[in-house]
């Protein structure tokens, strides 16, 4: 029996160039045994959704530091809905004020990990929400 590894797409939407956080997460999730794809900078939401579907990832992690996390996340969730994609766990990280966490969750984001979030906590959350469904023979 082999366990399918959890596949994660870490994405940088829009013009924001702060990628330190995104890259740290890539390192951490890889070390935790996940397969991690990183989009690189300056991606449109269209491109991110396209890659997520093509690569059949389990998790999409958006990283935003410019302050544009609300409109970008909203757009992502709308596109997923339009395409009738409901099996992706969407996470948002970056420079996110506490007050915006609730709004992001209302959009359908599963969890928000602002700057300083514990890496172990992120790993554990993904494993808990995705891990169980992925055991395949």
């Amino acid at each position, binding site marked *: 029996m082999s366990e399918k590894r959890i596949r994660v797409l870490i994405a940088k939407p829009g013009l924001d160039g702060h990628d330190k956080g995104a*890259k740290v997460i890539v390192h951490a999730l890889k070390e935790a045994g996940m397969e991690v794809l990183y989009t690189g900078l300056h991606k449109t939401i269209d491109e991110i959704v396209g890659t997520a579907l093509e690569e059949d990832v389990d998790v999409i992690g958006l990283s935003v530091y410019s*302050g544009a996390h609300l409109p970008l996340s909203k757009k992502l969730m709308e596109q997923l809905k339009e395409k009738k994609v409901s099996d992706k766990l969407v996470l948002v990280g970056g420079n996110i004020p506490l007050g915006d966490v609730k709004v992001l969750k209302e959009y359908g984001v599963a969890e928000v990990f602002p700057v300083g979030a514990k890496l172990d906590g992120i790993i554990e959350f993904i494993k808990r929400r995705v891990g169980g469904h992925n055991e395949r023979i």
Partner: protein
Amino acid sequence: MKESNKPEEIKEIRLESGIKVKPVYGPDDIRDLNYEKDIGQPGEYPFTRGIHPLMYRKRPWTMRQYSGFGTARETNERFKWLLGQGQTALNVAFDLPTQLGLDSDDPFAEEEVGRVGMAIDSLKDLEEAFADIPLDKISTSLTINPVASVMLAMYLVVAEKQGIPWEEVRGTTQNDILKEYIGRGTWIFPVEPSIRLIGDIVEFCSKNVPKFNPFSVCGYHIRESGATPVQEMAYAFEIAIAYIQEVLNRGLNIDDFAGRIAFNFDIYGNLWEQVAKFRAGRRLWAKIIKERFGAKNPRSMTLRMIAGGGGGGLTIQQPENNIVRGAYYALISALSGTQTMALCSYDEAYTIPSKKAALISLRTMQILADEMGLRDTVDPLAGSYYIEWLTEEMEKKIVECMKKVEEMGGMIRAVESGYIQGEVSRQAYNQEKKIQSGETTKIGVNKYVMEEEKAEVEIHQFNPKVAEQQKKKLVEIKNQRNESEVKDALSGLKKAAQTDDNVMPHILKGVKSYATLGEITRVFKDVFGEFKEPTGL
């Protein structure tokens, strides 16, 4: 109870750069140092103690807070207010679309217009940004990189319109594309044509705008992306060497432009390590320019820098603590002999600074300059056993780190292959793990943590209406300008971009005809293409 003094029972201390620190230093640790040769008087080679003989005794450091948001008009008001509060120069923040050469009506600019800086679409905007600010008296740093050529052209035309000759214009375009590929991320074109544009700007400035610094190499953003202080200096120097090589290949002499090279460095972390980093950096840079590039003019050998308190050291938790951190960073900067200082404000872990936060940063620097005696004597830490020893050690480490880059064929190759990006992100990950495990202490984050705290700082609020205002203005400009002039300028620019002609005269022509930033950038995109990012992961 008797305290133990046995060395094996004392916890080992290692700096971020990997250097082991002893509990006590003495004369033996600097036995081999020769004052004349290795340290030198301030203002004399190898400039370890500072690039001017009298340093702050003659003039305090320049105070230049990074500012700009929303429209050019709003930013102009903030500029004038800061200058009124005793700030001595300007440091301009542009929004992301501007930094990436997109007009405010570009679909990809959506949600970002005026957000992290001011929006500039055409000369009209920049005219408004500098209205009533005399460009021969105030020096301006333009924080812009892949489209630095366009912003420089606009700035020169604004000066011209104020009746100021280009010879009198002082300032800096950040114009450091290699560090954008490593951190910060506002790149557009592939590496080779981007370096060519930098060469065009240096060549143009050395002939026409002699008091302008055509590029400022930013170790700052490399460190903010996770690099150690040693990597920060080593990579910055290798970047500068890549640009120098490009300019020398055009037949210029090192002394024609090296005196106008500027650097931008970061301050956070261990106080002594930072001070030693700058002293070592000054000495090493002087040696590189003199010995490797054969400069004759001492000015060419001086490491001129803006050294500011970095956002990387600030925390979202207990944000008022960042005011204290900023004050320490300013102290380090002054003890390190910087030319210009800027501080990240206490609210910058959240967003761009509020008016109040910007003022506190400015006052922090002023208190240091006027109350604390930091201007009394040059390089007061010189001669300290520890500082001189550490300066030596840092220099050795920086040299080692530079060697690795040179073995790969230099900075351009090391960035194109993603090597540097990989090194920096691995370092960022290691550092984050150390903070999360508590090995590296961060007050409020992993020590003296306060539960259930709510951040209650008042932060800058983004105005989403700016985009509409900019779009309207673009329509007006396009209606008013002479279209055939614009077309002429852009086709001339295209030809220059396709050949070896310097693009600056053509950009100037375009800017004057009110061609937009987006239109000019589009020409470059058509000719040069766009950068394919190696993430180094």
